[in-house]
């Protein structure tokens, strides 16, 4: 019995080792977003709180925690309060299977890919329940939009993950990275380029980020599904959205860009000079680049029209992934090198 409690404590400690940096990263992602978009729009961004505005996210957190929780009249109180929790729990739970380096992973399970897909698919409940329990037209419209968007892009994303699974021959995230071992042209971004685009754009759509931010389109439905939430409830939705952004960035780095592998490996001088850098740093750098791309997208593109979002998901992405799955099958069976050499049978 004592061993079980001890084990639980150790696991809890490890979970905190992942979650606390994640929450800090979320706080500073919001800061980075405001600063970057500020510079892209020729503004300064937040620069008042602390040196150069570096304490702004802390001030925001304190503000959100101090605010009153307003429960709208006529809302379903229990569901209204449970919705943010339903939204944030899967986005945290998905981090359990992420390998930060060859040895650093909380749950080294061999269905990691499916687990990620399952966790991202149940986050939709938080959105639907939030919209419905708020007893507000805007919130309901936002949640309907969000749910249909998440459900449609999940299919394209699932197909994209099937391609990754086929290429690496494993559903364990660590094995997927190990299958890409080698210099940067051994990574899957070359043979899976269309899949990479589909996965990345579907990821942006799944996280409800611009240009797919119709669920919270502020010019049409105020703030979408979380319009009635104030204070900590809103903070949880916000936290989950940014945690999902970071998750999608890390997943893209893992699936297509060799995760913790050194990008300079195999290049003369540069490869041996960067040997000492730990793999986690590479993974985080790659993820940071994709995070930057998400913010860049938001500053650049106008919002899609709703029928365009649905069209892109169903009529473009799903056929593209299905066709590329067939191409990929031939590539694997022909043993196209350097990615699939040794697996060919033709």
């Amino acid at each position: 019995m004592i061993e079980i409690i001890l084990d639980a404590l150790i696991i809890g400690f490890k979970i905190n080792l992942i979650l606390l940096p994640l929450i800090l990263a979320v706080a500073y992602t919001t800061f980075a977003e405001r600063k970057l978009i500020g510079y892209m729009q020729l503004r300064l961004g937040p620069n008042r709180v602390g040196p150069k505005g570096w304490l702004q996210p802390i001030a925001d957190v304190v503000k959100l925690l101090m605010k009153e929780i307003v429960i709208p009249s006529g809302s379903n109180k229990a569901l209204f309060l449970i919705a943010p929790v339903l939204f944030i729990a899967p986005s945290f739970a998905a981090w359990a299977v992420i390998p930060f380096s060859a040895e650093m992973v909380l749950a080294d399970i061999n269905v990691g890919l499916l687990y990620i897909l399952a966790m991202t698919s149940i986050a939709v409940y938080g959105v639907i329940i939030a919209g419905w329990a708020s007893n507000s037209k805007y919130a309901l419209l936002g949640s309907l939009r969000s749910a249909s968007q998440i459900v449609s892009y999940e299919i394209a994303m699932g197909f994209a993950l099937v391609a990754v699974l086929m290429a690496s021959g494993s559903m364990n995230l660590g094995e997927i990275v190990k299958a890409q071992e080698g210099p940067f042209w051994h990574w899957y971004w070359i043979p899976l380029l269309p899949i990479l685009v589909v996965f990345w754009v579907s990821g942006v759509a799944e996280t409800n980020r611009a240009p797919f931010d119709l669920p919270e389109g502020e010019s049409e439905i105020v703030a979408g599904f979380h319009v009635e939430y104030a204070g900590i409830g809103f903070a949880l939705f916000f936290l989950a959205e940014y945690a999902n952004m970071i998750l999608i960035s890390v997943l893209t780095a893992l699936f297509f860009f060799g995760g913790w592998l050194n990008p300079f490996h195999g290049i003369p001088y540069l490869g041996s000079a960067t040997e000492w850098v730990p793999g986690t740093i590479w993974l985080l750098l790659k993820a940071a680049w994709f995070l930057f791309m998400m913010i860049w997208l938001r500053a650049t593109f106008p919002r899609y029209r709703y029928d365009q979002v649905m069209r892109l998901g169903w009529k473009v992405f799903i056929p593209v992934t299905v066709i590329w799955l067939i191409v990929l099958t031939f590539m694997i069976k022909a043993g196209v090198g350097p990615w699939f050499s040794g697996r060919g049978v033709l």
Partner: protein
Amino acid sequence: MTAEQIVFYLFATLAIASALGVVMVRNSVQAVLCLVLTFFSMAALWMLLEAEFLAIALVLVYVGAVMVLFLFVVMMLDVDFASLKQGFTRYVPLGVLVAAGLLIGLYWVLRGEVFGLEMMPEPNKHGAEHSNVEVLGKLLYTDYFYAFEVAGVILLVAIVAAISLTFRGRRERRGQSVPMQHRASKDERLHIVKMDAEVAEFEDQQIDQDSDNTGKGKKKQKSKAKAKPKTQTKGESS
């Protein structure tokens, strides 16, 4: 008590409690959420049986997709509870009969001689390297290949049937055709009108001011469009 037992009893209790909730809770949306919780705790129990692929597929397919659609339908329905309770006493005998029949049927299938501990020995435990997915995939694509493909065809038939049921001929409605929108070019949308300069006197200064305005971009779109032909004519004349 091992960790597995703790997990088992936790999720078994949760499954039974939430299954009771499905039929006991008054709010229909809450009932659907209870059903989701039942699926989820059953998935955890399957995980204990080393069926990790099936467990996650259950979450992915039932919780992530089927129940979402279910929830939508229930939300959109306006359930009138008063009318549901009408005629309760009338149907009680029939209900009791059906319940008793089901109970007997269940007992017949699950009784001790058929499903007891002696008949169903504890399965062998596999190590962490045992992949349930691999075993399942090999079985599905070799021994049960035809059954698997037939199931796929049945699903396809269901899709075709659903589409043909909801498809009610061509709809005469106005919509946006995306290919046409993509084909639209600047020539169809924008007319550039050439205009002669209107002011004869102080011509040089006037043109300078106009180009200043367009440069700053302070004027609105309309004035920009107007200013454009002017600069064009200016370019031509010079």
